[in-house]
């Protein structure tokens, strides 16, 4: 059972990561650097509970702000770049952060511990071990999964409300055509940075939750693979509405686990699924049109005109 609680918590963490991509995706900016903000959040969150004596929720919130600060640092200069240039800049930044995390050493000696394992805090390439907050405070995996999902629900509600507000229309205008957005009078750069920083905040929180679940993190956890998977959740789940990232992250965390019996083939099956979705549903599994159809089930279905009616 504990195994499935771990999966549940991990799913929630991945949902948050997917939403961190989706935030800037709404303004048409594709980031492949979310692993950086996730990693910063993980290190900050873990340091606060292990070395700083913070409680979990405050540590997660501060980690969120750390992620936001990091994304502000990247966002302000790079969001002036367009399209792919921005994406490449995020990749480069994520690599830089990974290398920094890999070489970070601070903390204090541990009173107990075996030889070679007497350090509390990140210890260079060895990583950051003994993030024992859950254990020390008697929080079970099930309770932790619940905490994670409460945060997920808050974030989902937040996106639900934003998507029905004026802000969503503004972001969509920026996504479709920046020239139009500027001609209408929208301060494009400001909105793009704000969306990106919100994404950084969510990624930071997600990273802190991840660190406490795993109890051991190292720079090697925050490689580009993580960033690409996070983007895949959004693209495959569907980037047009907030339901896509939710479905994508849940499916792509739970599915590989349930497919464990078929062992090595599960990764291949996973890849095949991605290809099939991209071939047959390029808008992702949940498109905006599908959401419109489901949310107004009483509306008559659009009739396709028969050729004879055209005359």
């Amino acid at each position: 059972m504990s195994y499935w609680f771990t999966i549940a918590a991990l799913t929630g963490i991945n949902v948050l990561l997917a939403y961190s991509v989706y935030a800037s995706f709404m303004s048409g900016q594709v980031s492949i650097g979310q692993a950086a903000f996730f990693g910063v959040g993980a290190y900050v969150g873990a340091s606060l509970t292990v070395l700083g004596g913070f409680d979990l929720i405050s540590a997660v919130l501060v980690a969120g702000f750390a992620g936001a600060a990091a994304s502000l640092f990247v966002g302000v200069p790079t969001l002036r770049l367009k399209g792919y240039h921005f994406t490449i800049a995020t990749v480069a930044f994520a690599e830089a952060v990974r290398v920094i995390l890999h070489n970070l050493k601070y903390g204090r000696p541990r009173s107990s511990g075996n030889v070679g394992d007497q350090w509390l805090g990140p210890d260079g390439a060895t990583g950051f071990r003994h993030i024992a907050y859950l254990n020390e405070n008697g929080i079970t995996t099930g309770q932790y999964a619940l905490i994670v999902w409460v945060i997920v629900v808050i974030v989902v509600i937040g996106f639900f409300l934003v998507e029905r507000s004026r802000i969503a229309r503004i972001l969509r205008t920026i996504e479709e055509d920046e020239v139009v957005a500027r001609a209408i009078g929208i301060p494009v750069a400001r909105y793009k940075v704000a969306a990106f920083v919100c994404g950084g905040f969510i990624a930071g929180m997600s990273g802190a939750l991840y660190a406490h679940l795993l109890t051991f993190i190292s720079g090697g956890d925050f490689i580009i693979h993580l960033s690409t998977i996070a983007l895949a959740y959004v693209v495959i789940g569907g980037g047009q509405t907030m339901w896509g990232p939710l479905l994508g992250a849940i499916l792509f965390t739970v599915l590989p686990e349930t497919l464990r019996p078929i062992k090595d083939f599960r990764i291949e099956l996973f890849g095949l699924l991605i290809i099939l979705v991209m071939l047959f549903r390029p808008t992702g599994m949940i498109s905006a049109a599908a959401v419109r159809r489901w949310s107004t089930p009483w509306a008559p279905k659009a009739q396709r005109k028969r050729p004879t009616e055209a005359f």
Partner: protein
Amino acid sequence: MLDVTNLTVSYGAISAVRNVSLTVKAGEVVTLIGANGAGKTSIVKALSGLVPKASGATKFRDTDISSLPAHEITRLGLVHVPEGRKLVPSMSVEENLICGAYCRTDKQGIADDLDAVMARFPRLRERRHQLAGTMSGGERQMLAIGRGLMAKPELLILDEPSLGLAPLLVEEVFNIIAGLKQEGKTILLIEQNALEALNSSDRAYVLRVGEVVMSGQSDKLAEDPELRRAYLGVN
């Protein structure tokens, strides 16, 4: 209302517009005509802040807008309807119109103007819930102009509104412009269709490779033999 002195616009080392001066007074319809590459679009993009102005002074309603960013210029009431009927195709007609009122906060005024725009273009009312991307070229142009009007412009800049439309629709676009003119709106019109543009404007500037080569009353320019030969294709 708009005073431009010695405007220069450069893209890298190439200057697309050199020392252009022009004025638009309140209530006037002024047109910029010229062949492809004459710098018409560059001028209006620079005016609305979409491309930077290399040098020159630009004053709009007594405010210096030479170095203001685009969104602040729009806020002052200089509204640019860009070339190519740019819309947000995945949003409905109504949503596109409401987006045009981004800078305004008077809810009642926005609702009234939405009604007014739909009364002006009944076609848009019929299609208010349709996605903008599924409309025809003429309807899109109406929507683009309608969106510009939603911003409550003091000066409306229309960039090539007749470009790529069927002759019947071109006529309709110029009817719309005539209607706006009658209501006393101030318009700066960019056109390749020189004859129609001269017919529906008070004054005109003729551009050639980034410079103003002729200017004056539209009806006088329409009689000018040299201009007729070069731009109207008549002898």
